[in-house]
């Protein structure tokens, strides 16, 4: 299923030149904030959980997921160069699978690693806060990548739709309507993080079983459907 050549091309598309800049900018910002908070405030478990939960998991992980997930396939479909890839004897589901692996890897590296470091800067992993949010970021990376890769194959406005989901649905509706939290990748990831670290600062609205089932279902269904969509892709002209 995994095709090294497709993977190499996707890595280059994602990390080439200026595009990597925005990917580096976000984690750098998180680390700067973490350092600033530590300097201002000293180590405080609650503050550390607030920063990691509010900035890292709620803003940074979805944004990097959107960039990596849609960026893995969106631009190629957009400018039509996907035909050169599709005309090679590579199965289309395996193209999707390879791109998903790359997107997951990029999202994990650029979101989970800085989260872990920021957690250590903030309070030296007191009450397992850093580990908990790193686990959440790792889990969320998988689901976000699959979801946004699917969006990239479905729509030309994948980035906008992905951002609306991440910012409006998860952040805005999630804070206003309790029901919206059940259908949020962020909360599913938090449920796992809660299990890993025991009770404490990390809480989730969703039960562990529900979260695991939904996470797995979203990832598998999104990947399958993306492969299905790519299988019967028609190239749209520029409007």
């Amino acid at each position, binding site marked *: 299923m995994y095709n090294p050549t497709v993977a190499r091309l996707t890595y280059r598309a994602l990390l080439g030149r200026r595009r990597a800049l925005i990917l580096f900018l976000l984690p750098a910002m998180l680390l700067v904030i973490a350092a600033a908070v530590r300097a201002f405030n000293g180590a405080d478990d609650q503050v550390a959980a607030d920063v990691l939960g*509010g900035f890292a998991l709620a803003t940074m992980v979805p944004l990097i997921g959107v960039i990596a997930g849609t*960026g893995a396939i969106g631009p190629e479909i957009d400018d039509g160069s996907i035909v050169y890839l599709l005309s090679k004897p590579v199965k289309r589901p395996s193209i999707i699978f390879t791109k998903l692996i790359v997107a997951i890897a990029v999202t994990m590296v650029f979101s989970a690693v800085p989260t872990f470091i920021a957690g250590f800067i903030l309070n030296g992993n007191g009450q397992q806060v850093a580990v908990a949010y790193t686990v959440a970021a790792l889990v969320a990376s998988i689901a976000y990548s699959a979801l946004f890769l699917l969006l990239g194959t479905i729509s030309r406005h994948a980035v906008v739709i992905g*951002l609306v989901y991440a910012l*409006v649905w998860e952040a805005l509706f999630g804070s206003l309507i309790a029901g919206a939290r059940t259908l949020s990748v962020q909360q599913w990831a938090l449920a796992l993080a809660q299990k890993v670290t025991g009770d404490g600062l990390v809480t989730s609205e969703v039960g562990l079983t529900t979260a695991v089932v939904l996470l797995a279902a979203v990832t598998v269904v999104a990947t399958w459907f993306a492969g299905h969509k790519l299988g019967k892709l028609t190239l749209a002209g520029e409007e």
Partner: protein
Amino acid sequence: MSTQTPQPSQAAPDTTRIHNIGYRSYDGPRLGRSYARRSLFSQSLRGAYGLGRSAKSKVLPMLLFGVMCVPALIIVAVAVVTKQTKLSIEYTQYAIFLQVVIGIFLASQAPQSVSRDLRFRTVPLYFSRPIERADYVLAKFGAMASALFLLTSVPLLILWIGSLLAKMDFGTQTQMFGQGLLSVALLSLLFGGIGLVMAALTPRRGFGVAAVIGALTISYGAVSTLQGIAYGTDNLGAISWLGLFSPITLIDGVQTAFLGAPSSFPGGEGPGAGTGAVYLLVVLALVAGSYGILMRRYRKVGL
């Protein structure tokens, strides 16, 4: 040529002729530079709302425009029915509350305004017309700012008309409406400039969208997190200085200092007149700076 019999060695030079096929030079009116600039402006402004583009590209901007207006209509309806003496939201606060919508509008429309020209290398075609670099940049900048101004001022207009329908005090409401308009005009200039700079640096539309929303949301998320922590640790002096680092808090600070708006900073501690002057200077510097960056960007573009 095909009618001539092939006589390669015998072909005499006096049989060739130049035919007059009727080319004429253009002698109609030449509409000139300002006309081209105006056309580019109106085309970009219409394009921001999907007018003159496919039906699919009208959906998102029109939807966002609707989302901007609906809360205003609801507020007005409530105010008229319950005969309030005061609107339940300040004019100046409206754009701050709906900043996500404004951000998504900018992120989706700024790249379509400039990125496609760059990606398909059509920019040289513009410059084959009698327009200069400054005209192109000014037209695009002006169109984006006007599109944002439309998006943010129409809800205020709805609020103002509604307040008059609900028989509130004309003088006070009009003054506050004016202050609101001034604030959203500043916001439109600032956001338009930032959005266009981000979009002009990335020819890929998708990355442009992400860069714009990143610049707006991430900076706001970072600033409000830090402000919250500063408030929690009684570091009240730091709150108003932290606001300098994100576009929406800049606007919030300016209108708190000069336009009589309530601050949405934690604790309601907005900047005073002195700090407010710094805010205003930073906003103006950012607007001028984004114009300068755009001028630099288009110096060698596509040639």
